[in-house]
């Protein structure tokens, strides 16, 4: 299987000014490692504020101007420079955003998807993309506010296939949809993956992620703390990181035991393992060891000094 996207040690920082003068560098993603193969759906699961959207924007090269990125991102084996991602986004790398507010409220759907192009070829492709998701010609003449929730979601997916996407980044594409509708949308993703695209599926809903994903990367406070094949989630003892296990126990079919506490904010001075505050297995050296590396463990990756220990609940 060909690797489409390979992220190694990626960090994202924001430069902020406090009271106008004091400059402050805020790390929002730290040492992130992740890869997506062709035909594969990789779910990125993490709580709100863990940096999932910034990951997506970082790959697309559309982070705000007061940020900078470290580490390497490779696309189809080659380094993804800002110039290269500017060239590829919208053609080979597509974003499927969260909802209808990502469409220009004052522009008809058609011109938004054709990006103002006059070429007949582009218009034909757009028509076909809309048809593929059951949207007729009249959809192109509609404004975003005239679409129903489900239609809007299909328009957003259609926008990804107006190009020839090899990497699709879906950032929380299903909120507010009922289980059935969400399943249908995820079905479309599976189809796109089967056609050869790599899909990075960003969500905070582990249960939903497990219904389609091949691989799951778990995000905590801007770090990947575990990467595991989806099968591992059938048995909690195969999971590696205490946070992943806690997520597993929080799933409705495993007893709905929510984890207490919250992840630290990016600006809280971090010493030792960022999960220490919520971890039931936390040892004294966990609080002292800075920058715990991500390492191979039982066929997956984990960032923990004592991975795979039994969780007592």
């Amino acid at each position, binding site marked *: 299987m060909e690797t489409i996207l390979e992220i190694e040690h990626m960090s994202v920082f924001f430069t902020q000014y406090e009271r106008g003068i004091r400059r402050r560098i805020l790390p929002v993603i730290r040492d992130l490692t992740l890869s997506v193969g062709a035909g594969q759906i990789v779910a990125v699961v993490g709580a709100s504020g863990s940096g999932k959207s910034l990951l997506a924007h970082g790959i*697309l090269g559309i982070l705000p101007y007061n940020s900078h990125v470290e580490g390497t991102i490779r696309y189809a084996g080659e380094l993804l420079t800002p110039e290269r991602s500017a060239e590829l*986004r919208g053609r080979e790398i597509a*974003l499927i955003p969260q909802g209808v507010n990502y469409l220009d409220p004052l*522009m008809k759907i058609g011109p938004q998807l054709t*990006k*103002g192009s006059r070429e007949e070829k582009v218009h034909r492709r757009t028509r076909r993309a809309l048809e593929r998701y059951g949207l007729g010609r009249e959809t192109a003449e509609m404004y975003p*506010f005239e679409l129903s929730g489900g239609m809007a979601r299909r328009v957003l997916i259609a926008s990804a296939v107006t190009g020839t996407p090899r990497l699709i980044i879906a950032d929380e594409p299903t909120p507010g949809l009922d289980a059935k509708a969400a399943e249908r949308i995820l079905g479309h993703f599976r189809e796109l993956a089967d056609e050869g695209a790599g899909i990075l599926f960003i969500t905070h809903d582990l249960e939903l992620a497990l219904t389609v994903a091949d691989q799951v990367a778990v995000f905590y406070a801007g770090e990947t703390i575990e990467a595991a094949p989806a099968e591992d989630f059938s048995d909690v003892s195969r999971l590696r990181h205490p946070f992943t296990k806690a997520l597993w126990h929080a799933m409705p079919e495993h007893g709905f035991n929510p984890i207490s506490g919250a992840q630290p904010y990016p600006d809280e001075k971090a010493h030792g393992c960022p999960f220490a505050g919520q971890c039931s297995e936390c040892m004294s050296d966990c609080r002292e060891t800075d920058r715990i590396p991500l390492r191979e463990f039982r066929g997956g990756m984990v960032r923990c000094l004592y991975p795979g220990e039994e969780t007592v609940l």
Partner: protein
Amino acid sequence: MKHRLQFTGKKLIRMALLLLGVSIVTFLLMCASPLDPLQTNVGQVALGSMSPEQVERLEAYWGTETPAVQRYLGWLGDVLHGDMGTSLLYRQPVLTVIGQRLAGSVLLLTAAWVFSGVLGLILGVTVGVFRGRWPDRLIRGYCLLISSTPTFWLAILLLLIFSVWLGWFPIGLSVPVGVAADAVTFGDRLRHAVLPALTLSITGVANIALHTREKMIDVLESDYILFARARGESEASVVLRHGLRNVSLPAITLQFASVSEIIGGSVLVEQVFSYPGLGQAAVTAGLGSDLPLLLGITVVTSAIVFAGNLIADLLYGAADPRIRRGAARE
């Protein structure tokens, strides 16, 4: 369509009530004015040398003896019959005076309005795009400086530099001195209008540019701009296709709201440039206790401002598909 008519009807009723309120406030302010109309307009000495009958006739002319409520109701009754009364100072029907003065100001006001609107929009959008970088700091600093400068002071400054020192433009008035009315060319009028119009525009541009900048920044930070970038649209396409389109709606509102600022500013500017327009007439009427003229001018200018807002609302409805299509489907 029915919806639109209803909307316009409601607005017109509100406008009538507003005009009524404006006229009452103006009237009350004039009644509270410490200026005695006889002393101001006839003069202390002349008044002293007059017989009591003459003074009584003058008092009747200026209406100082009639109770306030009766005077106001009398004025209102006449206005409802289409008669705005006669100016006490100019001894001409108020409408004639306003018509002449408005004709004098219209070149000035329109030029300032169009110029400040267009340039303000262009500057605001540009600065919004370059936010935080040097074009932004430069233009924003300039705009903040200008909008915190009193208009009359700016007028005096321009007058000093361009008329007194450089001698490029006339020092005042709207036509050359000592030239027969029919010998005055459009070029003459234009030359006299340039400086006052420039003063008004400079202040107007700063306000509109600063407001447009805020709107543009909001638009550029929106989710749909992010997605447009993610779809591979170029920076130029993002700004021109999505940015301008979305900033145009608030720009309509801003542009028509600026009518009131331009008219308000013209009062001071026309005074500095001795430009015989509506603004100057307002000052004369106010200081000379010419109640019918002042009431007439306030009501007419309020009506113009209100009409501007109404046009803005109607244009907004025509430009925003959410309102246009929403109304069409009803």
